């Protein structure tokens, strides 16, 4: 399941709600979760806010593809990606990736792969608001 959303969300509440409706209860022994949040600093500067832009349609298409590629390598039961767009403030959650699988290795590996591929392939762009002016983030850190 992929969600691109503009509203602020609580990642743990989202996960709890999503997990409650899973149809394969008792079949998974591992859930790997990654939550990415907005920092109030970058490249030595204070960052006061951020705007996240995406390419509607292409972003969803590539996230779907990334999930499929992960599943081919490390079969799992389900994966969830929630990604924020629009105006974001420090401490807000930006992204949640969760993978449910029978055993931990596939959940760990698939979630790591999904997150790294999202960072390098999914069309999202960050623009930071600094104390003075704003700037586009030119590349992702690891």
């Amino acid at each position: 399941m992929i969600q691109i959303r503009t509203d602020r969300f609580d990642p743990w509440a989202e996960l709890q709600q999503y997990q409650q409706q899973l149809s394969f209860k008792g079949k998974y022994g591992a859930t790997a979760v990654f939550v990415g949040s907005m920092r109030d600093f970058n490249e030595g500067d204070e960052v006061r806010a951020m705007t996240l832009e995406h390419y509607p349609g292409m972003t969803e298409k590539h996230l779907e593809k990334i999930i499929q590629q992960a599943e081919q390598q490390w079969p799992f039961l389900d994966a969830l990606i929630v990604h924020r767009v629009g105006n974001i403030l420090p401490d807000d959650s930006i992204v949640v990736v969760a993978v449910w699988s029978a055993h931990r290795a596939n959940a760990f590996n698939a979630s790591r792969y999904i997150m790294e591929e999202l960072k390098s392939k999914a069309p999202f762009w960050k623009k930071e608001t600094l104390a003075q002016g704003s700037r586009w983030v030119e590349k992702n850190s690891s």
Partner: protein
Amino acid sequence: MSINVRYFASLREHMGKADDRLEADLAKTVGEVWACVSKDMDMPANTLCAINMEYVDAGHVVKDGDEVAFFPPVTGG
């Protein structure tokens, strides 16, 4: 029919617009689309190109009705 051209993020600001429409017979490849819409301005380093929401390189052939997009390296997550 024509080619729909879209720009995102810093490239949209660089171009001063979000999209363009180009007569299909003016360009055979993504690179030629860029040359037409930018009036032969150099493509900024690291620009990524897509046709119909799939990544392609600048030499990829375009056809009538395609959506061609240009954007900087992605920085999500």
